[in-house]
Structure formats: C-alpha cells, structure tokens
C-alpha cells in the first residue's frame, strides 16, 4: 500500500482539545454545506469532564477497511493517503466498520454511503478551524511511518479511559 512522501496526517493533542466540537461543525459545513455534527467525519467523545477525545480515520498503514470492502468502494488517495469512498459503489454493508480497529467509519441517516475522513484533499477543514479557534489540538503533519499510528484508531471509550486517568486520576 501507499506510503509515498507527500502524504499527510492529522496529529492530535488530547490535552489541548477543549471538547468544543468546532471541528465537527467545520467538517459538516465543508462536506455537507450544513451544520450536521452526526455527518462529521471527525467525532469528539467525552465521557468524563475534561477528557475530550476527537476520533477520525488515522489512515492505518495496512488500510484494513479498504481490503475488507467487497464492492471496491474504498480506495487510497495516493497523494494524501486518505481513504476515499465512492458513493456509487458503497452499499452500506458495514464490512469496513467491522474491519476498522476503532469502528470509525460512520453511517448516518440521510446519507447513502459510509463517511470517512478524506483529509479535505490535503487541507483539512477541522484543523483550520481548530487553529482559528486558537486551540491547535489538531495539526497537519507528514504521515508518520510505521504501525504506531494505529493506536489512535482504538475504540473511543478505550482511549477516553486512558486519557481520563491522567487528567482526573482515580
């Protein structure tokens, strides 16, 4: 699979995330032309006060979702590294959701295909909004090599538990 030089990645710092969801708003405005948090490709989870965890596709090195798709609706954008969904091929069979270690692809009432972060062709709206709002919890970096990035794709409740322990203690 592709790991070419120009590919990007969204780096998150949970301690800087305010839990404001401006990223969700920006994402849905960009992709849907509406404020539609449920259709945002980035989702902030917050089960405990002060422990928000934004989750989105982390472009695993082995792209299990792409290999799992039976209709070839998913492919990797060689320029950015993003997973692109072809709406005309997706049947909402959920194979990609099952294959994803964090169950990140979203299925939303009103959309006939699965929603996955497309990295906005290299200029992610969520990152820009997070910077505009002065939080800088999200940043665009060159895609790190290796398998470690896959840890960020764990189920949100698991990540929340990890982060929460550090912020709140017991």
């Amino acid at each position, binding site marked *: 699979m592709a790991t070419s030089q120009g590919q990007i990645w969204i780096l998150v710092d949970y301690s800087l995330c305010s839990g*404001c969801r*401006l990223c969700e708003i920006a994402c849905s405005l960009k992709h849907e032309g509406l404020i539609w948090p449920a259709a945002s490709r980035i989702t902030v989870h917050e089960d405990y*006060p002060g422990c928000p965890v934004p989750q989105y596709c982390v472009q695993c090195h082995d792209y299990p979702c792409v290999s799992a798709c039976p209709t070839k609706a998913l492919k990797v954008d060689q320029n950015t590294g993003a997973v692109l969904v072809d709406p005309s091929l997706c049947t909402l069979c959920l194979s990609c959701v099952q294959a994803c270690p964090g169950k990140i692809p979203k299925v939303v009432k009103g959309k006939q295909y699965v929603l996955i972060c497309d990295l906005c062709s290299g200029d992610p709206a969520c990152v820009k909004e997070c910077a505009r*709002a002065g*939080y800088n919890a999200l940043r665009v970096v060159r895609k790190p090599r290796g398998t470690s990035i896959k840890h960020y794709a764990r189920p949100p409740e698991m990540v929340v538990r990890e982060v929460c322990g550090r*912020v*709140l*203690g017991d």
Partner: protein
Amino acid sequence: MVHVFGLWGRLLDIDLSSGKVAEMRINPMTYRMFIGGRGLAAYILWRELGRKWRDVDPLGPENILTVLTGPLTGYYPGIKISVSGKSPQSGGVVGSTVSSHIAYAIKACGYDGLVIRGASRDPVYIYVKDGDVEVRDASKLWGLGGMDLIKALRSELGKDTPSLYIGPAGENLVRTAAVMARWFHAAGYGGYGAVMGSKKLKAIVVDGSGPLPPVASMDEFTKLRCSVIDNVVGRATFRKWGTTSAIWGVGHDTSSEPIRNWQEEWHNREEFNHVLIEWRYWVKNPWADWGCPLACMKVSKVRIGGVTYLSDGPDYEMGAYLGSNLGVFEVDKMIALSAMADDLGLCGIQTGNVMGFAVELYERGVLTREDVGYELRWGDFEGLKRLMEDITYRRGIGRVLAEGTYRAAVAIARMKGVDPSEVLKYAVQVKGIGIGAHGIRSRKDYPQPIAYAASVQGGDHTSVAGLPANSEESESWSAFLDSAVVCSFTSVDEDTMIKYVNAVTGWTLTKEELYSVVGPRILTLQRVMLLLGGPDVRWDPRLHDENPPRFYEPLPSGPYTGGFVPREEVRKNLEEYYKQLGWDEYGIPTEETVRKLGLYDLADVVKDIRKELGVS
C-alpha cells in the same frame, strides 16, 4: 418545508400525566414577534395558562416546563438552551439559560424545543431520538447525583448523549434547585430543577442525528461566524482564566462581591485568587462548550479529607456565593462546596444566598442552636457542607431554607413571632430571587441602581434593567440574547448580533425595532405575568420594585467605603425606566402600550391589576 430559516417551526409537546406526545406548531409570525427561547416561553406559557396563571402552582402538574432553542442556537459560537415555566421562586417567568449540547441535539432531531406538561406518578426520563420520543422508567436513576447519573445514562444508552437533568435537590422540590447539564452547568435562576422534580422527571436526553435547518444567507452567515470567532479568540485573558478571575477582581477592585451575606463587598484576601486555583487545582484548561471558541470553562479537582471533588473553574458566581459570601476564603474548600452544589443539583447562587442569609441570622441570634441543631459559622467548611445537604434533603432547618431566601425569611419571622421586615432586612433578594454576585453600592460594576429592582427576573444578574431603555443597558438586550438563545460571554456588538440573526433567519430586524418593539414586548409580557404572580406570592410594585435593604447600608470597607445608593435616585430612575418602556408610574404597562406591542389580550389584565392595587 422550512418555516423560518434556522428554525423548524415545531416543538415536541409531551404530557407526562397521560404519556401523550404531540407536535406544537409555532408559526413564523410568532417567532418574528417573540424571537424564540425566553420570549417564546413567555408567549407559550401565557397562551396555555394565561387566564389561570395566578392559580397555577409552579410545583403542580398544571405548570408547564419549556426547553427551547432560538434562531442563534447552533449557529452562533457559544451554545445555550432556554429553560422556563412558571417560576417557583418569583411566580413569574424566568428565561433561565444553560450551556448544553442538548440545544443543538434538539434541532438535529428536527424540533426547536420541548414543552413538557403534567406530571408522572413514578420517576421517568424523556429520551428523544430523532423523531421518536420515549418516556422511560427512571426509578433506578432517582436519587443519583450528577456524576453518577451521567455515568448511568452513558452505560444505559451505550454512548455519551446530551442531557438536562436534576440532582437530589430538584427531586426534593428545593426551590433553589437548578436544571443541570454536563456535570457543572446549571440553569439556576427560576428554580426549574424543582419543577422537573415535581413532574418526577429526572432527565431529558436527546440524540439527534440530522442537520440543523439551513440558514437564509450562507455567505453572510459564514462571514459573520468567522468574524465572531476571531473576535472571541482575541479575548486572551478571558480564555485563560474564564470568569474565575473575578473572585479577586470583583471583590478587590470593583468592590461589588458578596461577602458574608453582603455585609461587605470588598476583600483583600490574596489567597482568594484565580491564579492560585490555576496552579493548584485546574486539571483541564481549556474546556469549552459546543461550538465555543472562548472556553471559559476549566476542570478543577481537589481532595479534602480523603474525598475527591470535581468542579469547573468554578465560575465567578459559584466562587463568590459558595466562597466569600459564606466567609470561605480557602479556595480548595470553595471548590469543594461548588462541586457539591453541582452534584446535588443546586443553583450555587440561590443556595449560597440562602446559606449566607442563614449564617447571618445565626450570628445575630435570630436563629439559634436549637433551631439549627449545630453551629453556623462563617468559613466553617464542615458546618456549611452539612447545611447544604440539609437544604438538599429538606432536613431540620433545611426544610425552611429549601424554600429559598424570601420564603424562608417570611417563615422564620412567623416562627419567631416577629414582623417579616425584621428578618427580610437580611434577605438579599428581589421578588423571590437572590441577587447575583454583582453589587451596586460601589458603582464600579456593571449593574445600575435599578438593575435588580426593575428586572422582570428579580435578582438575576444576567437580566438587569437600566437606562436608557433603548440601549444594551436595558433589559431588552438580555431579553433579546436569551430569546435568540446565545451566550452573553460570546456575544458581540448589537449591530453584528442583529445582522447575525437576520443572516440565519432571513428577517429584517433592526436595532430600532429591537429596542422599541421586540424587547419591550417580551419584557411587558413577563412583567404582567410577574405582577399577577401567585399562588403564594403577590408583588406590589410600590413595595417590591425595590433593592434589598442591605443595599441602602453604606459599604463598611474598601476603597468605596460609605458607598450606597440613594433611595430618591432609585425612585427617579425607576419612573424614567417605566416611562421609556411605556409603563405607568407604578411600572404597570398601560393599555395603549400592550396594544401597541401586539399583546391585545393583556389590555383587560393590566386594567385589573391597576384596579387591584387601587391605582386605576
């Protein structure tokens, strides 16, 4: 079909007595006249209850609880929801706002709000998922504090879902109980936590997966939204410290902070300072509400006697009312009391007000050890904790204090066989609502001398009256913000706010119309309902459009020692303010004014009020 841009034009109408759910349509003209949120709440309550308003027991099934968004909800950075109904504190209508993700979630379900009537026999919670409404059993949730409740809902629903809820205080019909959200947020003014409790409604949980309705002008909206975000991001110190910084500044600099039940308004306690809180106790900063670039919230954590307490900043009002007003200047203990109030579902302002009142009465020997069962002393953490719990669970003296400062004063006077004025002189409240933590005696803070005396929401520091009536100083401005339903901390200048509303809705609202028609319309309706009052309170403007007696005592300390507000000035300003709003010299809206504002059915009502007061 889109009704008004930015709104759906329909509410969920839920009857907890019968379990029936219906749709209530709100037409575009109504929105144009009352905007939404607070204004719409007053309109709905009047339409549904008007004729019998005075007989409606705020804690009876006949009261209606409204949970409403407005045209700016979800579109303007900084989200709020408006909670209202007949107030168990004032007997009027209070537009109580609270930051909660539930506000956008309701719109994402395709509705603008909820109207909740009747009362359930057994504890329930309302679960809304898109168009579906379920009234679910909450017997296992009843009794839980905020922290445990959110955990329990999380495990029942499988994911974090926006909610409004009550703690034990609301369940026990404590009149200082708040409608809570997101652990530390409260719609405190009005006492609507007790209204939820009286309906056996533990929580409202909303999971909305749809989009917000489209706006009228996407280009204009986008431009304005970016400019507001940039403006708010520029408020660097506010972002850093939130309102917590005021525990020092409002006390030391403007000398308008409640200290020991407002016996003083100035302090020089270096240790009562936000910087020390930041260093020692904040485990999370920034922390923001939905769509907010300000992040005035922080998460603080303290450990006292083996117990961990979690709270927000706390914000200034909690810091003042559960700190300095109780003589608590140790910040860790103030944070702990704030955390307790949040978890028990108490309004920190109203509860800190009645607690400070009780400690002063004890200090003066009006309340005795026999009355209370233990000693009440300023700054005594253990005793104050016990008092807060006794209020929440209505134990001992808590039974009396749970009625809020005004009713407690009247009850204690009766208990002691003295004239009510002998006890009411220590009650720092207006029309049943304890005054927010911004005094008027030093004249260095924002509220004017008539801020509370003339407010249609009594002591509410977020809805103060002032001159001139056609400016941001007037209560019309708060009525507008609370009706558009937006946070006053992220709001900007009037012109931009009005342009913003127009960009979302497609209206052609102007500043002139806001101050001469829309604001006065909402205030006039609220004023009439407040003057009707009942069943246990009746306000006479000649007696009750008045500051608490304490505000006429000169400040005893600080740079503005001797400061007070002259009664003649208050009288003169009141009359001028009434005149500018089209009310008579007693503050009763005239028949001409109510007709001019399109409140035709109030014409007979104001005539009757005048007759009753013997001023016709």
